[in-house]
């Protein structure tokens, strides 16, 4: 673990050195989102990959100058270093959330919205909101489902908050760590056009979880069909954000490994959704006891059990 942490620190230092290595870079102040994107780690782009440019969200593929080397140049034990991860305004956060909920087909979330300014505000607070939303919605949903029963005594189920917190924060931080390690390892074998830093991956995962917040609120509705439709819908939306982000990063690799990687990403995402639905929301039972009515031909209508 110490070696891995050292490698992480070296990666940050490398990025800082690369950014600081170009003292002639023009300083462009980031005032509006429609700015010229920067080449992240100074890697050259091969000519002729127009679809990459489209996915990268830029038409200026030969812009290799680095922006002002002020970002992330503070040593990691100072407070200013961590302030660089919170260098976002309200409208930027809202734009990124909008980009995760309405994925534009063919546009890469990272290149379009993050643009070398990954923030930790979004991932952290979206996860926190999601934890409490799931816990509260699950509690409310169980309350409504069991409302009429005489033996039911309402309990706040506070334990589930800590379980939800562990699950969601572990997913939003450990899976990006594993994915980043995997991509770095593949990068050492196959030269990829697109590579992401750890913080950008954390950012994508954090913002892609946003769609689950309204989904969790709507899961209060105690209908199984509605819940599964909602889950499929949100899984498609956030899954597509993840797939469109990571497909360019593994596309140049061995076909099977690329497909396996993207498949694993989607599978883990689906597992999170299904797990939350199964654990925090009780199965909706019958809303009303259906009477057994003898039909005309004498058969008995079976009660529909969910």
């Amino acid at each position, binding site marked *: 673990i110490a070696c891995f942490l050292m490698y992480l620190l070296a990666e940050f230092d490398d990025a800082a050195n690369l950014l600081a290595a170009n003292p002639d870079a023009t300083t462009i102040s980031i005032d509006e989102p429609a700015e010229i994107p920067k080449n992240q780690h100074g890697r050259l782009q091969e000519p002729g990959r127009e679809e990459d440019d489209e996915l990268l969200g830029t038409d200026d593929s030969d812009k290799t100058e680095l922006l002002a080397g002020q970002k992330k140049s503070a040593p990691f034990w100072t*407070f200013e270093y*961590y*302030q660089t*991860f*919170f260098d*976002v*305004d*309200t*409208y930027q*956060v809202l734009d990124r959330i909008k980009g995760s909920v309405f994925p534009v087909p063919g546009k890469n979330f990272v290149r379009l919205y993050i643009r070398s300014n990954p923030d930790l*505000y979004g991932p952290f*607070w979206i996860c*926190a*909101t999601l934890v*409490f939303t799931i816990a*509260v919605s699950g*509690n409310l949903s169980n309350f409504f489902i069991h409302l009429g029963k005489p033996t039911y*005594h*309402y*309990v*706040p*189920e*506070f*334990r589930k908050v800590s379980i939800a917190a562990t699950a969601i924060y572990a997913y939003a931080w450990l899976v990006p760590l594993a994915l980043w390690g995997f991509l770095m390892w593949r990068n050492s074998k196959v030269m990829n056009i697109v590579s992401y830093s750890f913080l950008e991956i954390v950012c994508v995962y954090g913002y892609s979880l946003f769609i689950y917040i309204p989904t969790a609120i709507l899961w209060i509705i105690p209908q199984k069909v509605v819940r599964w439709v909602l889950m499929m819908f949100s899984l498609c939306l956030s899954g597509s954000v993840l797939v469109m982000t990571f497909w360019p990063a593994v596309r140049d690799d061995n076909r099977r490994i690329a497909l396996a990687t993207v498949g694993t990403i989607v599978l883990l995402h689906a597992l999170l959704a299904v797990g939350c639905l199964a654990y925090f929301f009780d199965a909706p039972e019958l809303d009303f006891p259906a009477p057994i009515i003898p039909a005309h031909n004498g058969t008995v209508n079976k009660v529909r059990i969910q």
Partner: protein
Amino acid sequence: FAGLADVSISEDIPVEGEITVPVGSRSPDEDFSTLDEPVRDTIMRDLKAVGKKFVHVMYPKKSSALLRDWDLWGPLVLCVSLALMLQGGSADSKDDGGPQFAEVFVIIWFGAVVITLNSKLLGGTISFFQSLCVLGYCVLPLTVAMLVCRLVLLAGSGTISFVIRLIVVVAMFGWSTLASTAFLADSQPPNRKALVVYPIFLFYFVISWMILTFTPQ
């Protein structure tokens, strides 16, 4: 050392200066030395400071008194009393009951620390303990709501009592959020105010949820 025989200190050089030795008590500093005052004065001064801040929270005006003379006594008292009042709930199933005392404590203090860190990381100019102080003091309306809820629950736990509790908790939640925002919003950069206010909203929402879902055994 023969050459030094000629060196002598001339009597023309004046020697000036003041040498004073402070004797007895220094009268302008008597106000700062609180060792000699009766204990009652010491306690009453702190209590009055805490009480004044409570009044500031209940009628939030843009005064800097809450920020300037921060103290954490009020938040501690509020947190302990809120956590105590949240005990004694439905504890028939240990796993599914309400929050334990330590959980309430941790949520309030850890939540306040995280929100303060968040506002400082976003570029806020408020100091760490001032922000903790404001967030802690603004739990006062919710503590009052908890008290009212427990009193209402003594009378009964039907639908009407639930509606009353809901209205009281929602009103106090709004009051807490508005009070803390009134004190904290000015110290933030103008284009990040919403980013700072939202976690405060979430914090008080969680506390309100804990209060509202309290069910007696």
